[in-house]
């Protein structure tokens, strides 16, 4: 018995080795490299200056708050939209589901670029209407970023939720209905437990993505504040030498956040109740 378990464990380890080796090389090597850059600016001695500068910089504080806020709002809205659409589309045919999932394969940058072409100051809508009544792109609250993320991520979450709402759920739902359970109670006690796990795991992934990606904020984000990724980019553009160390420290913090979120997602995925 113990021997069999050991053999099975060894087989699992052997299967995972190639993936883990690549991961260790890429992530481990990179983390070591970035840590080194954050501590040793080119041609200078090792110091904690980059970290001190980072924590002392009010712009970085603003960037962290702004990034967390836009990521949180985008994720929450995307999850709500996905849930609403899933409930509306769960008994619809493949065509409706495919149309709803259409934005998933469209690259983020393309959506952001289209938003800029149409909605930016001086964009097509601006010219046609002679000035837009609301600022969507470059809005200082990050409205443009949120809109692009909701448009892109809600269909992604929708696919995860629809996959969970399969035949098994339909049967349980019908059985509950036959027993006279009200629609609201069915939503609470039958549907929610089914979709909770994929929705939570998916939302963590979306949140981590919104936290780290920089192309959407760069294209449609406001002049100020920057997101964390944009802050890192600006640091390298400002001072080419010490800026790299500041950017490295920034990205290390950002990576630490993403790793924590990944751990949370793994835990949530293991837990049938969605963590």
């Amino acid at each position, binding site marked *: 018995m113990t021997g069999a378990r050991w053999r099975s464990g060894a087989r699992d380890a052997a299967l995972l080795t190639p993936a883990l080796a690549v991961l260790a*090389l*890429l*992530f481990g*090597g*990179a*983390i*070591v*490299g*970035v840590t*080194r*850059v954050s501590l*040793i600016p*080119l*041609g200078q001695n090792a110091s904690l200056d980059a970290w001190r500068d980072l924590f002392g910089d*009010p*712009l970085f504080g*603003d960037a962290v708050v702004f990034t967390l806020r836009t990521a949180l709002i985008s994720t929450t809205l995307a999850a709500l939209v996905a849930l609403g659409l899933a409930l509306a589309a769960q008994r619809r045919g493949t065509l409706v589901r495919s149309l709803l999932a259409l934005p*998933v*394969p469209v690259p*983020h940058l393309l959506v952001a670029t289209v938003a800029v072409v149409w909605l*930016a*100051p*001086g964009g097509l809508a*601006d*010219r046609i209407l002679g*000035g837009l009544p609301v*600022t969507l792109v*470059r*809005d*200082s609250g990050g409205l443009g970023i949120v809109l692009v993320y909701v448009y892109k*991520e809600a269909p*992604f979450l929708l696919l995860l939720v629809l996959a969970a709402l399969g035949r098994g759920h339909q049967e349980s739902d019908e059985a509950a209905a036959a027993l006279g359970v009200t629609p609201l109670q069915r939503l609470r006690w039958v549907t929610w437990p089914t979709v909770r796990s994929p929705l939570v795991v998916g939302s963590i*992934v*979306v949140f*981590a*993505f919104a936290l*780290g*990606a920089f192309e959407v904020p760069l294209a449609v984000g*406001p*002049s*100020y*504040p920057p997101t964390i990724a944009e802050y890192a980019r*600006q640091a*390298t*553009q*400002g*001072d*080419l*030498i010490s800026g*790299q160390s500041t950017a*490295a420290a920034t*990205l290390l913090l950002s990576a630490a956040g993403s790793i924590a979120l990944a751990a949370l997602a793994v835990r949530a995925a293991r837990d049938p109740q969605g963590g």
Partner: protein
Amino acid sequence: MIPRRLALTAALTLVSAALAACGGSDSNSTPAGGSSTEGFSSKREAASGQTVRWWMYGGDAKVNAYVDDTVAPAARKLGVRIERVPVADTADAVQRVVAERRAGKTSDGSVDLIWINGENFASGKKAGLWLEDWATGLPNSRFVDPDDPAIRTDFQVPVDGQESPWQRAAFVFASDSDRTDTPPSDLDALLAYAEENPGRVTYPAPPDFTGSAFVRQVVAAKGEDAGFEYLKQLRPFLYRAGKTYPKSEAELSRLFGDGQVDFAMSYDPAFVNSGVRKGQFPRTARPFSLSDGALQNTSFVTIPANAANPEGAQVIADLLLSPQLQAAKADPASIGNPTVLDLGRLGDRRSLFSEAEDSPYVLAEYGRTLAELPADRVEELERRWMLEVLRQSP
């Protein structure tokens, strides 16, 4: 979809970071030594057959066309090929050299020549990234006035033969004579105009190159504290009440071309000329400068110390200083850029420049010269602007 994207982006970032981590950070540079004309002919021989990878800002179509259609054919006659590597920001080219240095690559680098000036040059010089003592040895450098402060220094950093001049720039504005009868004569008049016409004036947000130059223009004309006071006063009357700024000169030019704001601005003294030619600006667009003075600078070409083809790069740098090529560039039909050569040193060749026709789209005079601030002040001012003007936006 997302996890794959995330993994791919992370993987690419991490691979490059890991590669960067493997190298040392020695400060090796290869002094080339000053060279006489004879010395240079041996360089020409060595350059023959080389392909020079010239990293340069790629966002200016007429500069690209000038390099491809005028410089490259002239270089081919000397046996040197030019491979233009367009970058969105010159800092990207410097970053590449920094990454190679970090990776311990002290020769055979992928950057042979960079169009550069200001803080990019200064920080590279500080880190010992550039080939030394080559620029004054170029045969055509005899047409340049070595005592001109705009040639001897770059944003007040001594050039020390590490870069060779190529272009002159002056900060100019544009207005549409159909919409604005008399453009503002100085910064105070610009503020008064903005107060009377709220939302019709704006400038790109630093650290954009042009926006940063506008802030320096104000600081150079008024002094630092008074300059920032001026910018804060201007803010509520800007386009969209200063809550958002154009991200780039291109975006400001688009707003001006569409008639949404009344003025455009650029560090390219011929930008009205090219805007009208592209059809982006109306034919009634006219350049103007302010009586406070115009910020002026020179841009250069530099060679990284680890360049794979330093001889070819020097041949190109020399070619760029030839009176024929400088005259071709000064022609408003091409770039319309003022020459870096000293016309008094040209002798008969001076006539090449008198042929450059008069154009309503290029200024003959830029008024008082406002000297560029030291390179290390640029980032400081950009930060101050972000903290005091942008961050405090209503």
